[in-house]
């Protein structure tokens, strides 16, 4: 009998802070398991939340074979692999509480003007994928995440802004970096300035500029012709300064996906999707690789209880030469966007989003907070004729995505 068992364990401590004070803490330690039986070219799946032995789960699965998903691809041969980030795991879960005190010290000066509500979470993720031969892929790492939502006292808004950190280890330097980058903007919050509609360089720190484009790299959408850039492989579609990669291993940014949940191992950590403006590759899981005659790229994603779908490991734009701060200092005007929620693309690739929180920066100097704006551009333009520059780094040290500066039409709401 051929099978594989995917087991995930999440152990976490999450602490909620309201108006600078701890309100609650939540502990979780839950194991989830899913088995896939491969019989006569059909896949039968069964899942369980809680403790159950592999043999009991297999028995359960044998008794529940009702609907099988047809498959006609070769199963990958598993090879023992272990990815364990010991450094990230070294601190106890309770260590996350130390971060709260440090952040409170930095925010104290603003407590009369703003209400800061936040959440601090430390999770230990453990995943194993074991097949019928007893060969196991294993990964274990810790994730630390914290954020503060801030609201001006008396504001009718749900939130006026936020900032967050996602450090691999709980180091003071990472926390300092988040505050050093964000506090100058918070200090300028009360200085709302007037704005003239027009075309401006925009740095969108909150928004998915690549979301419409990314559909074109899914093997099924690309090959069926239902994506915006179907049929463009090998062609130059964007500026030579624009490259895009699927990255599957980057511990600094919490990416540990050297094997996918089908057991496919991709040797290269960085798969080129666009190189210097030319479309290079699409991604595929085993099913779609077989169906469309492309290579399986280690992008088969599933949870313990779901079927495999193609997903990016981590979609990252190729870095440029100058840092984010250097580019900001070189631009006469730049709109730096901290909140641009709710925007979207039309099926043609037209993009628009309201900007709930943005600032005007001139030659690196924060001039003031801008009123509520709307920006417009298109997928074609934003990485092509209107692309200004891509930075060598992100706005914050823990941002994996380099800053993208692109021109947009900007108008006051």
């Amino acid at each position, binding site marked *: 009998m051929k099978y594989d068992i995917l087991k995930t364990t999440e152990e976490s401590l999450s602490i909620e802070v*309201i108006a*600078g004070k701890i*309100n*609650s*803490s*939540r*502990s*979780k*330690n*839950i*194991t989830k398991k899913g088995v896939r039986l491969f019989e006569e070219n059909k896949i039968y*799946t069964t*899942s*369980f*939340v*809680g*403790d159950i032995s592999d043999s009991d789960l297999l028995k359960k699965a044998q008794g529940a074979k*009702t*609907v099988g*998903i*047809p498959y006609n691809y070769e199963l990958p041969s598993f090879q023992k692999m272990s990815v364990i980030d010991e450094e990230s795991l070294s601190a106890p879960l309770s260590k996350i509480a130390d971060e709260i005190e440090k952040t409170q010290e930095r925010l104290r000066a603003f407590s009369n003007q703003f*209400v*800061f509500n936040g*959440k601090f979470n430390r999770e230990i993720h453990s995943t194993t994928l074991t097949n019928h031969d007893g060969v196991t892929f294993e990964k274990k790492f810790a994730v630390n995440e914290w954020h503060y939502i801030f*609201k001006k*006292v*008396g*504001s*009718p*808004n*749900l*939130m*006026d802004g936020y900032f967050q950190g996602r450090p691999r280890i709980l180091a003071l330097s990472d926390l300092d970096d988040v505050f050093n980058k964000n506090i100058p903007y918070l200090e300028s919050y009360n200085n709302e300035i007037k704005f003239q509609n027009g075309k401006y360089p925009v740095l969108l720190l909150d928004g998915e500029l690549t979301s419409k484009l990314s559909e074109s790299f899914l093997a*099924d*959408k690309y090959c*069926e012709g*239902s994506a*915006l850039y179907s049929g463009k492989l090998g062609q130059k579609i964007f500026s030579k300064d624009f490259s895009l990669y699927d990255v599957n291993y980057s511990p600094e940014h919490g990416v540990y996906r050297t094997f996918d949940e089908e057991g496919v191992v991709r040797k290269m950590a960085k798969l080129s999707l666009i190189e210097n403006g030319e479309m290079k590759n699409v991604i595929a899981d085993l099913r779609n690789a077989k169906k469309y005659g492309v290579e399986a790229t280690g992008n088969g994603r599933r949870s313990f*209880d*779901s*079927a495999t779908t193609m997903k990016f490991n981590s979609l990252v734009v190729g870095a440029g030469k100058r840092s984010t701060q250097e580019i900001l200092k070189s631009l006469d005007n730049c709109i730096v966007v901290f*909140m641009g*929620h*709710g*925007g*979207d693309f*039309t*099926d*043609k690739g*037209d*993009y*628009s*989003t*309201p900007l*709930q*929180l943005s600032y005007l920066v001139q030659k690196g100097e924060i001039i003031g907070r801008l009123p*509520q704006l*709307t920006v417009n551009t298109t997928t074609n333009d934003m990485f092509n004729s209107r692309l200004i520059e891509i930075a060598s780094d992100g706005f914050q040290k823990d941002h994996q995505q380099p800053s993208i500066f692109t021109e947009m039409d900007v*108008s006051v*709401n």
Partner: protein
Amino acid sequence: MDLKSILDHLDLKKFACHFVDVRIERTQSSHFTFRNGELVSAAEKPVVGAFIRVHHHGLWFYASTTAVTNLEAEINKIIDQANAGKKSSNTYVVPENNGIHHLINKAADAFSKIPLETKVKLGESYLPLIKKIDNLKESGIHYTDIYKEKFYKSSVGTEFSYDFNQAGFGFSAVLKKDGDLVDDWFRVYVTDFKKLDNLEKDILDFFIESQRFLGAETITPGKYKVVLSPEITGVFTHESFGHKSEADFMMGDPEATKEWKIGSTIGAACLSIVDTGVHDNTSGYCPIDDEGTLAKKTYLIKDGVLTGRLHSTHTANVLEEKATGNARAMNFEFEPIVRMTSTYIEGGSVPFNELLKRAEGGIYFYNFKHGSGGSTFTIAPNRAYRIKDGKIAEPVRVSVLSGSVFETLKMIEACGDDFHLESSAFGGCGKGEQSPLPVADGGPSILVSEMQVS
């Protein structure tokens, strides 16, 4: 496993803490997906788990567990954790005993009783439609259902159980003609499986209309007079004012109750907004919340005047108001927080055609992809049309519809006579880490004098 019996044998009054409650959930869900005519996913998912809350020494301590037969030990572990930390005074006023309410009544019609094979056969019956839709490049046939039972008990004596049963069916398609793409999705919500039969004509008619969007122009960004369909009115209500009515956003802000003074006029006189969990057979059904507070009809706005907000027992405590039955958790892994149930604008009396006549040169919005609320609300529409000569005219492509909540509430000029409460089994409401939570929203078609369209 008899979950009620587990709680019956658990004496919560004996624990040495300020307050404790336990919620056990048994969820049985299933789904299938056909992509481009092939079955790519089909599974049943059983889950049983419990969430424990302890309030002690001035703080909340939570734990989620699948060890539902070992809850006493879990509670003791949390109390030990509370005793080991800082000790502050308990400011949380424990809720009243709201009585015992056992409301499980949907088991006979539970979707979990229908074999997965039967469900998948339903999907297969719609496969021939793929060849009948013009310009089709990609298709998906989707099904999801859930049957959930909740059991609750608190140290003040409140007990409840109820069940929730819903399913959704969808047919998605990407159309392509002359290089132009249109992505659209037909969806239905049911609480009776038989109602998913014989949808062929509805699906084909839906995609005949989608064809009109091939080649549609993109809107020139600007401010437009708009008419919103009941579905869009619903998402507007949810995103624009519903989220702002959730009282947890006021926590820690000493000025909030002054700025949000009950009795203030904040909307047009024709505007009344309600939230209530009492509507059975909708995705907003929540007869009793996850703290044991019974659902009621809460007017958030009545005739343009601010009349209420949504509370958990904690926010009601802090703001010295009454709990409203809106403390809800996404599942057994999370604590209840303030959430909406069914949120809607009450129906008016103006015929739909009259709304169109009064919106000459404006835009009509029919359905949507997603919405968001915050300082501005946003709606990403799917289908939008120009309004000409008092009628719906040619389709137009729009990325996003947005505006300031308070300005827009005052710009509602008329409410139609076509009230509809919209439910969905796909997706739901997201708040923080808890997404999706089933909710319903709706209203009549409404005429708004100005919204930002881009």
